[in-house]
């Protein structure tokens, strides 16, 4: 360790009025896992995306092994020995596993203009076996595999050619525990081979455990690079946000009695291939946590409760007996839903903040709409949620993950919804915004609203829920009541 591999000098990038990365200079060594941390919008992803040729930089240079590199695109970056595993899906549907692995690098299998598919499949299968993913078939179409497996395939795709730099951008939030373990195993292997892993994560425990050095960005500025052994989680948080965080992160109360009044009940709810006769009751003023492995059906459960599932059987009814069979009825009866798939299902991504906030509330504003009133409405709730923005006419596609989620929540708070279904509410979101969201949920609970929180994070379930329901294979497999003695293990036990 210690030998310089990549030197970034005065890297700069603006998006319109947002100065995303400000003159950042950083050094990465051979044989290290170098974590890059910071709040949402601090410029981590923008920085690595420039390194990988996804964005072009406004200024600065990257020097890799003494040679200046300017990747034009991801494939070009690969040729320079730089690879990335991204936060969202990075594989292409409709192609086979092998085609995905060698995407953009098929040349090695082409002789006299003809691609030798058999050789490519064989090579891909060898790689998969080598990585310990032999259950994945190289010739199968990638759509046959779930989100988790596709991430594993991405690991192969990004690292089989022994790149000098591998960027792991917020990948762990998408993976369950076993997937994470696989990823870490390969990160450590890459490090031991003398390459460098640039590791972006919001999970500070993970960061401290696996990285050698940690660099912190804040609002596009470089703050510091420190050895992982010299800091603890609280110090990192302080460096990230630039001020002390309160002690309270999750709610701290225990043993509060939850009302017996049922506001939403699911009876015998089934969705083919997803849910199997689920029964559930949500009470007034309750935070009901739903946990499980990512394909246990809990995400579909949120949709089913919101009347958004196709092919659902069984009944979903409100406290007063109103059946919920479509999204419109749900919204009209004060229900709200924030999807795990924020960019496609929660937000109209190519639209303004204002339109996104006002959409479901327009029906309450009468037949005639005043532009001024709508702007005031959007401003009021965007400010209430402290969305970082230039103004409400800004498009949501340019916002960071945490800010996007704030817009989603602002919409439903504006609508005044009483039953909130929040699927992975803090997915890919930094500590500060997380704390805000937890605080908000706690306040809602006290106001007598009911929250159905679906989460893949066990700590979040333990910290926030009045009651926790664990699911496995589309069925409810366990239920727990809020208690300081409840352990992670007992939940995990019901998940697998």
């Amino acid at each position, binding site marked *: 360790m210690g030998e310089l591999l990549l030197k970034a000098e005065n890297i700069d990038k603006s*998006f319109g009025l947002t100065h995303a990365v400000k003159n950042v200079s950083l050094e990465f060594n051979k044989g290290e896992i170098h974590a890059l941390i910071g709040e949402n919008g601090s410029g981590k992803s923008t920085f690595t995306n420039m390194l990988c040729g996804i964005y072009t930089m406004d200024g600065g240079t990257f020097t890799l092994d003494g040679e200046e590199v300017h990747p034009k695109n991801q494939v070009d970056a690969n040729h320079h020995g730089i690879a990335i595993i991204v936060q969202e899906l990075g594989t292409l549907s409709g192609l086979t596993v092998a085609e995905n692995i060698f995407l953009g690098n098929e040349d090695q299998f082409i002789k006299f203009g003809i691609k030798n598919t058999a050789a490519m499949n064989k090579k891909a299968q060898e790689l998969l076996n080598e990585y310990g993913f032999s259950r994945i078939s190289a010739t199968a179409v990638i759509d046959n595999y779930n989100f988790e497996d596709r991430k594993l395939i991405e690991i192969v795709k990004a690292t089989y050619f022994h790149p000098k730099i591998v960027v792991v951008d917020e990948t762990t939030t998408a993976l369950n525990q076993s997937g994470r373990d696989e990823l870490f195993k390969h990160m450590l292997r890459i490090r031991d081979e003398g390459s460098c892993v640039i590791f972006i994560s919001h999970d500070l425990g993970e960061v401290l455990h696996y990285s050698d050095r940690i660099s912190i960005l804040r609002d596009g500025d470089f703050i510091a690079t420190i050895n992982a052994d010299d800091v603890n989680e609280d110090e990192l948080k302080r460096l990230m946000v630039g001020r002390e965080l309160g002690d309270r992160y999750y709610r701290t109360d225990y043993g509060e009695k939850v009302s017996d009044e049922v506001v939403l009940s699911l009876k015998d709810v089934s969705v083919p291939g997803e849910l199997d006769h689920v029964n559930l009751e949500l009470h007034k003023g309750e935070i009901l946590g739903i946990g499980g492995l990512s394909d246990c059906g809990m995400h579909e459960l949120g949709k089913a409760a919101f009347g958004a599932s196709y092919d659902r059987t069984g009944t979903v009814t409100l406290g007063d007996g109103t059946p919920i069979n479509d999204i419109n009825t*749900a919204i009209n009866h004060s229900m709200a839903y924030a999807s795990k798939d924020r960019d496609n299902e929660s937000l*109209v991504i190519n639209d303004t903040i204002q339109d996104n906030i006002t959409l479901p509330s*327009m*029906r309450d504003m009468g037949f005639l*709409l005043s532009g001024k009133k709508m702007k005031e409405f959007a401003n009021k709730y965007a400010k209430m949620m402290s969305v970082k923005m230039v103004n409400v006419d800004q498009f949501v596609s340019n916002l960071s993950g945490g800010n996007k989620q704030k817009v989603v929540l602002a919409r439903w708070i504006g609508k005044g919804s009483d039953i909130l279904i929040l699927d992975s509410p803090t997915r890919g979101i930094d500590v500060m915004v997380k704390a805000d969201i937890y605080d908000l949920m706690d306040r809602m609970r006290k106001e007598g609203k009911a929250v159905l929180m679906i989460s893949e994070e066990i700590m979040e379930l333990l910290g926030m829920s009045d009651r926790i329901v664990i699911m496995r294979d589309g069925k409810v497999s366990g239920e727990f009541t809020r208690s300081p003695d409840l352990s992670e293990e007992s939940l995990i036990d019901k998940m697998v």
Partner: protein
Amino acid sequence: MKNKINRSTIREILPVAGLVFVIVLFAILTEGRIVNPTNLKLLLSQTYMLAIACMGVFFVMSMGCLDFSQGSLMGVTCIVVCYLSNINLFLAIIGGIVAGGLLGAVNGYFHVVRKIPSFIVTNCMMYALRGVVAYLTTKSPVYAVSTISNLNTMPFMLTITLVVLAIGFFFYKFTSLGANLKAIGAGEKAARFAGIKVEKTKFLVYVAAGAITGFAAFINAIKVGSVTSTGGNQLETQILIALVLGGMPISGGAKSRFTNIIVGVLLYKFLTTGLVMLGFTTAMQQLIQGIVFLIVVFLFSDRESIQVIK
């Protein structure tokens, strides 16, 4: 995104600037003939039908859909209007609107219920309805009652066009309709999760677009007085060019503006009239129009958020 902000301002300004540029250019090239009052009056008289028909397609395109059937649909509804005008003028208007609405419902049914891309559905409808027009006019053109041309005065036609546009503007700007259509264009799935009745809205917009063109057929009948087998031919292309020239994003969505219709129709009409006055052949005019269209699409395409047209 510094670029992008500039780009969106350009999008707002360029159509208007283009309109001024085209007027000034042709005023110079035609030595002022294009802007003399007689010609302006003539030019204006050609915009009524186009502007009204554009409005329906504007709603459709806001949702990120397309409609190529409007030309043939105009032909068919115009036959209905002309035929019924011999019985009663009021009945003719209603008949045109109802016929247009029904044909629009066919578009809507196949696109929304049967989930076939609008591009395919409306293209098929274009050919099918063109066949209907040709069949019904085989022996002779369908004539409207001769007194219908009494209505062909500027005050009447201009007023009626402005009233129709004003109604459309009102719904687009001051009710939730506009925001809903734009949201569907910008992200259909999310729009559904925000409680917009996507299917119902789409279907009704296709019905409305047909009905609006059915009304435009009445305006056309006043002006032309009869329908031949080419009635309404290529209107769909004119509409598309006009809207895009007016600054309408081809994939619809949040950047759609109602003013795109008015600016676009005027720009298109000045352009075509100017080309005619300069003595270009029809073939040359089409070539030039095609090139201008391509340039405008090139300038305006939002390549960063490009999406498949539904």
